Structure formats: C-alpha cells, structure tokens
C-alpha cells in the first residue's frame, strides 16, 4: 500500500488566509493588517471588502460610546429544520466562527455626538440571514428609537430571510416594517445603509425604507438572486445589474458613499433630520462651525426661548 506523502507544494493560489487577502476585483495581494488600516477598502481599485459587525461599529460610532442591548437573544429551531445538517448545528458553527450570537447587533451609541439607536448586520454569520433574532433586534432598535426619540441607523449586510426558520423568517419583514412605520408616524428619522450584499427579504423590508438610503460603492443590492432571475426568466441581465450604482440610477438610493466618508455623511444628515426637540440632550455645543440645527431652532418661538435659556 503506497504511503501518501504530504504535499509540500501548495496550490499556486494558496496563501495563508489570515495574513493575506486577494482582492477579488483587481487580484492584488493585500496584507491584512494594512487592509484593516484602510477600512478594508482595496487601495489599488477601491473594492469594498465586507466588514464584521464590530469593525462596522468601530468605523461609525464615537469611540467607546456603543452600549449593546439584548446581546443574549438567540435563535431556536421552530421547524426542526434539517437539510444536510440540522439548523442548530449550523447556528452553533456560525457562533464559533464569528463569536457572535446571531447576524445582527444593536445598541445605543453616539454618532458624531448625536445619540442614536444603531443596528448593524454581519454577513459572516450565516450570510447575514434574517431569522427571528435579527428581526427582533431591528424591531427593538426601532422601538427604542421611538421611545427615546433618537434617530435609528441600520447597516444591512444580508442574503435575505433565513430559510431554516421558514415563514417565521418571512414574518420578520412585517415585524420590522411595522415598527418602522410607527417611527415614520412619530417623525423620528431613520437612516438605512446598504452594504455588500443587501438582498432578498432584508432589502424588501427595512433596508429599502430609509428616510435616506445610503449605499457603499458597488455593493450587491437587489430583490431576487441572480440565479433566481437567470433560472426563471432566461434573460440577459444588464451590466452592473443590482449594484449600488444601478439602484442609484433608478432612484432607490440617495447617495453612494465611499466607506471613508460614511460616518461624516451620516453625521451631516443627522444635523438636518434631528429637529431641536429630538436633540435636547446633544452635547456637541459650540464646537461645530456650521450649526444648522441652532439656526433652525432660532426660527421658532420655542427655539428662541431655548437659545435664550442656554445663553
């Protein structure tokens, strides 16, 4: 019986995945530490790599201001779903791989001084799929935003609803949208950020419904998967189909924003969307050169009184 010697020569494209990453767009080899420094955007072609939920929070919120809520929410297996592997095993594997409990994290934080409720998704956890936990976290974030009257920011990265939870995952669309509708009625602002990828039931629920929709460049954003489209309609898909710029061109995204600008852009928008009544507890007094909020406040009698009190 021949002894199988270990092969010392790896495959030509093999590389230690924890040290180097190959840019899928321009094929440049990028040193991970370097890549992390530039917010995981390829320095040579501008390809936006996916971010973990933690990295996304570090990027967006003021340092040390994030306070996670409902960290203990965890999926159960309502259907007893087994495909080639039982659903609980898949969840456990994803938890070990990512160190997260499910595909979303929500909490309160400050974004450039503005108090916000923020929910971020992580594609690394089962494709960012939305089951009951993700739906619940988005809904709770929205309900908190409503109660505390602070703006809601949701950063989406998801393949869609989680098939393993069946129609209960589908019902998360109604759950999250219902909560957002209440936010809209109460005139509490909601900013939606779509990152690569935002598809299926997540796109068709909270991601598309932002008062302002932002997207990272060239992110895959769409309703039906390319495979579904191709399989069902046997039709040539236009170039750039379902990318951020396609959505922008067709009027469903307000701004396509480079990752390095994202935080500033959100902060700028919040200055317009957060009325004086919502930002009473704001602490960024006096430092900003432009203070449109104070100008606005000064135009109303209540605002004039408030300004006088402050003075």
């Amino acid at each position: 019986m021949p002894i199988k010697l270990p092969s010392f020569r790896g495959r030509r494209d093999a590389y230690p995945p924890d040290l180097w990453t190959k840019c899928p767009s321009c094929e440049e080899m990028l040193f991970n530490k370097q890549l992390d420094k530039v917010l995981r955007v390829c320095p040579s072609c501008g390809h936006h790599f996916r971010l973990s939920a933690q990295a996304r929070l570090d990027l967006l919120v003021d340092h040390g201001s994030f306070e996670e809520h409902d960290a203990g929410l965890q999926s159960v297996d309502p259907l007893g779903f087994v495909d080639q592997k039982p659903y609980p095993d898949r969840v456990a594997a994803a938890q070990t791989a990512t160190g997260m409990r499910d595909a979303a994290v929500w909490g309160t934080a400050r974004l450039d001084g503005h108090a916000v409720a923020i929910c971020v998704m992580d594609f690394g956890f089962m494709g960012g799929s939305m089951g009951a936990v993700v739906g619940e976290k988005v809904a709770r974030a929205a309900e908190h935003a409503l109660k505390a009257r602070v703006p809601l920011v949701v950063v989406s990265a998801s393949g869609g609803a989680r098939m393993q939870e069946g129609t209960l995952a589908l019902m998360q669309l109604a759950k999250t949208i219902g909560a957002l509708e209440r936010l809209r009625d109460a005139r509490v602002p909601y900013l939606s950020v779509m990152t690569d990828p935002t598809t299926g039931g997540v796109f068709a629920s909270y991601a598309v419904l932002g008062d302002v929709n932002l997207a990272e460049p060239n992110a895959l954003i769409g309703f039906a998967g390319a495979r579904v489209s191709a399989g069902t309609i046997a039709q040539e898909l236009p170039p750039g189909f379902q990318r951020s710029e396609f959505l922008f061109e067709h009027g469903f995204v307000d701004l396509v924003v480079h990752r390095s600008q994202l935080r500033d852009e959100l902060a700028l928008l919040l200055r317009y969307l957060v009325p004086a009544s919502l930002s009473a507890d704001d602490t960024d007094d006096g430092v900003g050169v432009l203070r449109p909020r104070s100008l606005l406040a000064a135009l109303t009698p209540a605002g004039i009184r408030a300004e006088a009190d402050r003075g």
Partner: protein
Amino acid sequence: MVDRFITRAREAAGAHAPAGHGPGDSQPGAGGAAADPTDPKAAVWARVQLARNLRRPRTLELLEAIADEVIELHGDRLFGDDAAVVAGFARIDGRRVVVVGQQKGADTDENIRRNFGMPHPEGYRKAMRVMELAERFGLPVVTFVDVPGAHPGPESEERGIAEAIARSIGMMTRLRTPIVAVITGEGGSGGALAIAVGDVVIALENAVYSVISPEGCAAILWRTADEAPSAALAMKMTAADQAALGVVDIVVPEPGEGAHADHAETGRRLRQVIVAQLDALGQVPLDELVEARYRRYRNLGAYTEATTPAVAPPERPGLADRLRNLLDPGRWPTVQLPAPGRGRDEPPAREEV
C-alpha cells in the same frame, strides 16, 4: 421562458389526473406523490402540486363564487396596469368590501398575459392604491394570495419591486380598516406577504406558504432542485403546519380531491368564514384593531434570551498549528483553520425572498 412554465403548468395539471400519471411524471416527486401517500415527503409534495394545479380557482373565479357583485379597478396611476394582480370592489353576502388578489392564468395564453401570476411593482402599487381607498371610505379589505413569487426580472428591479413590497407591507400594518387575508394557492415569499398582512389570515387546506420556493431552497441547501420535496417537507409549508406555527389562523377544508374539483363549494365554504371574520372584526374599534395587528406580527418568530456571556471568540490557530495542519492533516487533533467558506469574501448567498 414560456417553455419552462408550460412544462411546469403541465406537471401541475398532470400530477393529479385521475390515474395520477400525467405527462409531467418525469419530475421527481410528482409521480411518487400519487404512488405512496404514507410517505410524508410525498404527501407534502402532493399538496404543493395541488396548490399549483392549473385548474385551481384563482381570485376572480373565487370571487365569482363568493361575491354577488365585482367591480374591477385598473392601473397604479404611476406606470401601468399589472394583470397579475386584480383589485376592486365586491359585495360579499351584502357587505361591501375592497378585494385585492393575485391572478394566475387558466391556460397558456392567459398565463402569458398575466405573467404566470408573478406581479411587477405596478401590481403591488395598484394594490396599495386600492387599499388606500378602502381606508378612506371605511371598507374592509379581503385579499387572496396565490403567487409563485414576485417577478424576478430586470424590469422588476429597475422599477423597485423590493420597495413596492416593503411599502405594501408597511401600508397593511397600519391600515385603519379590517383586513382578512386568504392564502388560496401558493404563498410565495415576499411577493405573497406584500398582500397577506391581515388581522386574520385564512388558508385553504391545500394552500402552501413559504419563505422561498421549495425548488429555490433545495438549490441552495441541497445544491440540487431535485430535492424540492425534501425542502418542502423541511420548511413545513402546508396550511396545517402554518396554522401550528401561528402564521395562519384558520384552515378551511377543501371539497373532494381539492379546490379545483368544485369551485362553487370552495367559494361557499370560504364565504362563510370570511363573512364571520368580517363581522367580528367590524366590532373592534380601529385603534385596537391596528394595535392588535401590530402585536400579531410583532410576536411571530421564536427566540430565547440567553444570560450566559457572549460566545467565545474563535481561537486563532498559531504557527505550529498551521504547520501541523499543512504537513499532516488528521494526525493531531489540531485547531481547525477557518473553513474557506466562512471567509469574509465568499460569494454572496443569494435568496429568493
């Protein structure tokens, strides 16, 4: 495109021909369903085929049996009129209501005209327009859901199918009038939910409701669409299972071998239930009604709240572990390198939702 659907339509019609062996039996599961009724997978698949049966009554046929009078309205006032969605006014047992429903075709010509019951954004926007009328003029809404899924093509995406679905769901969560939703055939994912948010959700016995088509689910999780019956079983998509999950409130039994066998009797049974629900919901003050509807969907979905600290971060393999793995995998109970599939830049898992 058309060929594909004609084949599927033939299968749907053929699988339940008296002998149970129509021309579509080459598809796995379709013939087996009739062969062994004790196999749960086959039983579920038989229901999926029944839900897709070409002769199954659609919205207009059901209305013919249920309503005394129907006035169909057309157009979304923004782009066009989508024949895959029908909407308008109807009188059911003397009660004036607004109806919205999806409409597949009964034959190939009609199916081409109605896009095989797959609505474009304008279909959902028509539905919204008519539901807004219902709210404004104090009429209850009855919806009939029978859709393989919203149309997944480029035109649909360009005109914002996701936005139309999300807005329609949103409108239904806050509409200040009673809503009774009836799943009559295929409840295909977001395209179905867009008109299926209700105070009461009714399903016909052989209707199915799922987050993704069984073929799509099988293609993703089993890597072959041939496993669709397994996916259908795993997703618990039958009306009875959906009632057990709380997604559906009432299951209405169908006459004989299915709704396609007797449209009039199916309509009569549905009318009884719809009328009873409309009368009950009509008694509830609107504020309570909308709050209860919000709560209904707010409470769907199962999760637990763990108190233990967060899951430990993954252990990163050191250099020695990597060398061991590289040189002689399997000899040591080594720390696993992160599986390639778990990387940050794996190709996106796409879903049809």
